[in-house]
């Protein structure tokens, strides 16, 4: 089926994946990931050249960047920030502790990972990940923005469970010297 309507829809889908605005929420991490997220937007890495803007208002955001292991008090806030964002939206969990609690796993007040609270699309590993990896995570989430989540699920497109897990690069693997 071709025609003006299909063309229009294709154009909308393509445009949605450009210039993502990000909303950053700290779910109780150590700040390490948060300052690296800010660093991603600063002159050296300059994600802003791709049209990435950090906004404070969840209603304007496309990609939610979450850091930290989540505790019971901020779980509610995270969920409400997520719910306020308009579809299509994607969630990128930045750092080890957003993935599974990281170094804090087992500490008395944490839930261990934000995947239990919001549907995470991309996990960026590292404690903290470098700005390059955060940028890579945001870029990995871009194709998901073409369709709202419900449409993605209905058409069998990328679903929330087809999680993108970035593999560590060769130079990021820390080798402990023998002896």
């Amino acid at each position: 089926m071709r025609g003006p309507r299909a063309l229009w829809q294709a154009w909308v889908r393509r445009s949605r994946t450009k210039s993502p605005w990000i909303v950053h929420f700290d779910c109780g991490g150590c700040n390490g990931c948060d300052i690296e997220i800010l660093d991603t937007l600063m002159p050296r890495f300059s994600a802003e050249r791709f049209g990435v803007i950090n906004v404070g208002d969840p209603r304007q955001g496309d990609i939610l960047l979450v850091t930290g292991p989540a505790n019971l008090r901020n779980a509610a806030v995270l969920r409400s920030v997520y719910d306020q964002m308009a579809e299509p939206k994607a969630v990128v969990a930045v750092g080890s502790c957003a993935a599974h609690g990281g170094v804090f796993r087992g500490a008395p007040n944490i839930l261990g990972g934000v995947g239990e609270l919001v549907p995470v699309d991309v996990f960026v590993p590292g404690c903290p990940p470098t700005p390059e990896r955060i940028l890579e995570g945001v870029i990995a989430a871009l194709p998901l923005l073409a369709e709202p989540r419900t449409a993605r699920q209905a058409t069998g497109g990328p679903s929330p469970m087809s999680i993108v897990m970035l593999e560590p690069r060769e130079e990021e693997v820390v080798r402990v010297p023998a002896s």
Partner: protein
Amino acid sequence: MSRLPDCTTVSPEGLLDAVGALRHDDWRLVTASCVPHRAGWMVLYHFERGERLQHLRIEVPAGGSAPSIGAHYGAAFLVENEMAELQGLPVSGLAIDYRGRLYRDFDGPEGWVHGPRGEAISALEAAGLTRLDACVPVVDGREVRAGTTRVPEPPEPSTNGHGAAGEAGGRP
């Protein structure tokens, strides 16, 4: 074996006088440290003046309480609330009392599970629910679920992370 130098042990009743004397001599309250100790508590108050440190120690038996030193050091209310919440030491006469909800209770919009974490978790576990279900908001009487978002938990000792503070078990 190292012990703190310049550490005086006082009784809980004599604490306020001793603290008042230090305040009068311009000692700065660094902080207080509370340690659960022999079914009760041991509390250390640390003071500093001109790079010198001095400590006051009190022992509070189980069922007792520590007096608030807020009258002498107004900024002490934070650390006293923290002791009350995290170590369970009752502090009497707090100026600003968070009633054990400085850090650990969790609040949210209508429909979220309220109450201190320990109660919430044990109630949930009694009902056979996992932690994901703890955070399902209810809108218009309908649960809004996060969909198929559950990330499979890596196998862990069963008590880890689920219990209230202190009962989550030691490391193997």
